[in-house]
């Protein structure tokens, strides 16, 4: 019961946050200088033509009217149409979402798979060379910009060795093998950085478990170090990994935008960058809103999954 209530409260908070966020997004976008009409018509157009186009695009309506229309449209699944092309923003965004979602999703999936073992090694053998190597690897991984990693991977695997395509994207449905080969390097560059960061948290989470009294109790009943750590540490570590992953999501989304640029993936990042450049505000608003919603929703999910994972929270005795 307490859980249901907590989830309901969290949902209400989420909806409120989304509303506030939508207003911020809209206001910021409207405040951007530059004019899509001028951009469309170019250097040769007359001011009258530009005005006519602005009117046609509905850019002359009052701020709140446009905000209401936009939010209202989004609630019914309509993000408006691109000023530049007249194409519905939804049609522009969804194909891009597929690309970005694969990139971000696969990276987020692989990140803990890399970070957990590495963090475990770094924690358990932190006074030995194995731990030192794992810690150093994570430190170095964190210190290198993702795009740099991407460039290096391309120069080695695409250009020197010719094993993998340097950039571009193929839809999964069109060619699964091609899809995979195009995603290997981008996902790898994103994962390396994120995993390096997560490793650090995993390490300290495991180190913390090592200091816990309950771990000492487990050792006292006969657990060896590693199996005991996996048995009693993993679930506790999972909680902090989950939090950090939730916090890392925003970083991953940003990383993905840069990586998309390095690998020219037709994802949300490149859509956003071009749309901002072209002042195609409907597209900018839609894309930014989508990213913001994703982060907010995932954070809400992380909060809720706390309720499930941590019995102290689940049974309502701790918050």
């Amino acid at each position: 019961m307490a859980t249901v209530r907590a989830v309901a409260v969290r949902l209400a908070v989420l909806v409120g946050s989304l509303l506030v966020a939508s207003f911020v997004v809209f206001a910021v976008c409207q405040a951007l200088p530059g004019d899509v009409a001028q951009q469309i018509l170019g250097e040769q157009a007359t001011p009258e033509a530009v005005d006519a186009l602005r009117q046609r695009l509905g850019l002359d309506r009052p701020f709140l009217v446009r905000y209401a229309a936009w939010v209202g449209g989004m609630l019914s699944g309509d993000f408006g149409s691109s000023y530049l092309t007249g194409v519905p923003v939804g049609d522009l965004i969804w194909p891009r979402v597929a690309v970005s979602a694969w990139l971000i999703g696969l990276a987020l999936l692989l990140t803990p798979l890399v970070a957990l073992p590495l963090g475990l090694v770094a924690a358990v053998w932190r006074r030995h060379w194995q731990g030192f190597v794992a810690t150093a690897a994570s430190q170095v991984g964190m210190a290198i910009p993702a795009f740099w990693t991407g460039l290096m991977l391309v120069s080695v695997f695409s250009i020197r060795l010719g094993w993998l395509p340097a950039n571009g994207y193929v839809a999964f449905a069109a060619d699964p093998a091609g899809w995979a080969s195009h995603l290997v390097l981008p996902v790898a560059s994103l994962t390396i950085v994120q995993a390096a960061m997560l490793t650090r948290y995993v390490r300290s989470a495991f180190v913390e478990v090592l200091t816990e009294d309950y771990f000492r109790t487990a050792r006292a009943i006969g657990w060896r170090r590693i199996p005991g750590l996996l048995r009693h540490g993993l679930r506790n570590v999972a909680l902090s990994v989950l939090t950090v992953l939730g916090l890392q999501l925003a970083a991953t989304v940003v990383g993905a935008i840069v990586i998309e640029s390095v690998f020219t993936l037709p994802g949300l990042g490149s859509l956003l960058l071009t749309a901002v450049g072209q002042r195609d505000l409907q597209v900018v608003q839609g894309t930014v809103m989508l990213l913001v919603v994703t982060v907010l929703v995932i954070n809400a999910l992380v909060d809720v999954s706390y309720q499930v994972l941590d019995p102290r929270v689940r049974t309502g005795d701790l918050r």
Partner: protein
Amino acid sequence: SPAASPTSAEKTLTVGATLEPPSLDPTTNSSASIPQLLLYNTYQTLVRLDNAGNLQPLLAQRWDISTDLLTYTFHLDPAAKFASGTAVTAEAAAKSIERIKDADTVSVWANQMEVVDSATAVDTHTLQVTLSRPSNNWLFNMASSAGIVIDPDGLSGLATQPAGSGPYVLDSWTRGDSITLKLNKSYWGTPPRYDKVVFRYFSDANAMNAAMLSGQLDIISNLQAPEAVSQFSDTSKYSVIRGTTNGEVVLGMNHDVAALSNLKVRQAIAAAIDKKALLETVWNGEGTLIGSMSVPTDPWYEDLTGVNPYDQAKAKKLLSEAGYASGLSLRLRVPATAYARKSAEFVASSLKQVGITVTIQELQFGVWYSDVFTKGDYDLTIVSHVEARDVFTFADPSYYWHYDNATFQKLVQQADEASSAQELPLMKQAVKLLATDVAADWLFALPNLVVTRAGITGVPQNATSLSFDVTTIASR
């Protein structure tokens, strides 16, 4: 092509390009990426520009000009058909012209068609256009986006579905990635060699190079990072085609700014910059030094690089004569593009050495448009003017340079209205005047640097129009 799957018998050409078209309608959107993709490939014009910048027949087999230079009669090719199968008629051509003029269309090119009094179909294949005053430019413009003949049945969806008469039609558009053209099965002329042409778009020049190096591309339509050209020096794998474009990289000066309205200051700026070294540094020596608003493929082109030679001492002297011995501060606001950013860095360094402090601001194109171009809020800017024969922009005092020179305006007007024999000397005079008056400073003209996989032929050397014409490309 290596990008095509080996089992397919189809021949596919993959072209790398930098800017993805925002829309597919070249008449209502000014982006140069649209004619690059569509002009001559899917859309055709009555007349076209050849590699040397001369007008050639396309949909019109020939054309006559009345002696008063006001009436143009075009004789259309009777075989010409739109991709939809309907014939290209004089009526359709007239309608296309009218459409540009029509205020409802909000066409980018309305002012280019201003001189047109009427466009009428004399018969199915004869089009007569009457101008309100003689204009040589008008016919020239008819070879570009303003002059495309559009299938009247396809007018409603031009932004996403081209309706032309060229050898290719749109196959698919993966936004953010690529646009594929496929063969127009019912093309009326000589069919081209490739069944499909894929234009892949790269916002990052280096990514495009990497794609070429890893065998994903057949052609780089225009190398945006010329210092990378050495990567393609292996002639057994690649060939590099060097030509010219219409893109003059202009160091624009705002004549409304007090300091820059002073000729001596402008001369000092021009003298302070070593263009040869700039081209070497910024664009790897690829491209042409021009000296004024004219490129080698213009009929009136002359080498004017000697008018304002590099001379730092003279620049300092001119500045102190102008009263800026103690220094001068200027804002250089450039759009965020490779050539502008790099040139800006060079220009700032050069001007610093003669005592002009330059603050560089990199603006996104949208902001550049609104701040620099529309509001004229700048001192110096660097932008490449890619339209052909855009020297005329200096004749418009409201244009963002705010250059107001009656002599120049008169020369240009006379040239436009003159017979072709008199046009050339007038234009030469006009172009030279710009240089001596330092209406702006011309850094260089962008090269047409095309990289192809070895064995590909038929790529036009010069980009005289904005089109990347794939119709003549073949592979051995």
